[in-house]
């Protein structure tokens, strides 16, 4: 089961700080979404509004057609897992935290939770406060997955996890998304590692949504043009250039947008080398400080 997420001109201000600036997007649901952005770009703010943790200042947010804030009918079907965990739970045992989570969510699956506890080797009788950073993240992951909520969001849930455990997390998310299609949003900095999991990617920069695109389309939508600096300059004139690197007479320009067959042939004839652009590079350049786009 999944619910459509509709965000329209969403603005969130804390005093004089604008955390989200007229963000609009529609998530049709049943997919894995990647939410990318630099520190302070508004990722956690957006997820907090979607989870009903914060009331937005302006615009509209609807999940399954209903307003989110102060609406238990919606928030009981949404789960946001924060990477840092919840400090108020420090004195509770892991088993108790899981029990509370089960009471909170009607969709909770306790057999699946037990499976995940085993997978991530969580000690049920220890207090949350005594857990390592990584184990605490893993506890959040177990809660997010076992809640089986139609909208589940993991905000940098990989923090403190070692590589093998991160891969366990990715495998579990993927297996779950295929077994029980639901909307899963992953916010992350580790783009290269996790991007193959995404069906769609959203990029926030400075509170604005700068991009929302299918991951596969994104992978095909940029290229690096390399060659003699003057020839490169002439070729990219009029194209959207995200960034440039120069070494002696050689220059490499990152172009965003599809090149047609004629342009490709022209580049090849001019002795230019066309290479693919990595999602991570695209991300870095789209969120470059001072980027006018």
């Amino acid at each position: 089961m999944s619910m459509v997420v509709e965000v329209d001109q969403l603005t969130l201000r804390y005093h004089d700080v604008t955390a989200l600036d007229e963000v609009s997007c529609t998530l049709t649901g049943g997919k894995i979404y990647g939410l990318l952005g630099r520190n302070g770009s508004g990722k956690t703010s957006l997820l907090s509004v979607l989870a009903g943790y914060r009331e937005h200042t302006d615009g509209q947010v609807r999940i399954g057609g209903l307003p989110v804030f102060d609406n238990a009918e919606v928030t009981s079907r949404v789960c946001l897992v924060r990477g840092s965990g919840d400090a108020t739970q420090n004195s509770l045992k892991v088993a108790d935290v899981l029990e509370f989570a089960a009471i909170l969510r009607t969709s909770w699956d306790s057999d699946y939770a037990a499976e995940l506890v085993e997978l991530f080797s969580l000690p049920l009788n220890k207090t949350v406060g005594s857990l390592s950073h990584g184990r605490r993240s893993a506890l959040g992951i177990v809660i997010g997955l076992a809640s089986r909520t139609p909208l589940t969001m993991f905000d940098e849930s990989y923090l403190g996890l070692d590589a093998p455990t991160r891969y366990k997390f990715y495998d579990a998310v993927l297996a779950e998304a295929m077994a029980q299609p639901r909307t899963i949003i992953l916010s992350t900095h580790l783009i290269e590692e996790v991007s193959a999991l995404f069906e769609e990617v959203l990029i926030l920069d400075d509170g604005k949504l700068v991009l929302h695109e299918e991951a596969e389309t994104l992978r095909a939508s940029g290229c690096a043009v390399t060659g003699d600096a003057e020839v490169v300059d002439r070729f990219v004139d009029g194209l959207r250039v995200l960034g440039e690197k120069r070494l002696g007479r050689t220059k490499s320009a990152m172009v965003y947008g599809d090149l047609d067959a004629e342009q490709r042939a022209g580049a090849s004839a001019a002795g230019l080398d066309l290479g693919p652009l990595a999602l991570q590079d695209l991300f870095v350049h789209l969120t470059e400080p001072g980027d006018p786009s």
Partner: protein
Amino acid sequence: MFDDRSPIYRQIAEQIEADVLRGALGADDQVMSTTKYAAFHRINPATVAKAFQQLVDDGLLYKRRGVGMFVSPDAPETLRERRRKTFFTDVVDPMVAQARTLRIPAGELIDRITELSTGEEQP
């Protein structure tokens, strides 16, 4: 396994094509399911489905409803035919250009090719 630098569905399709050309996947062999493929390679199932769809459109795979995807009997020949068309521009031309940069005489290249081809049936 898959890099982030070109559409992953294209890389999946190429991998399956390579398996067919090598004979690792034979005519009417079943291909791994979308779900298994996605889990094994840790990629989004929609991406895998897109690759499979392209292979179906190219006539290399066929679908049996409720069972799965299978290799078309003429897939190897279709692929060989397609690769033959671009073999010289994709493989030979760059090799010759590289040899020229390294100042390897054309004669040496020809000798090598002849040496590697002896014993082979002439078409």
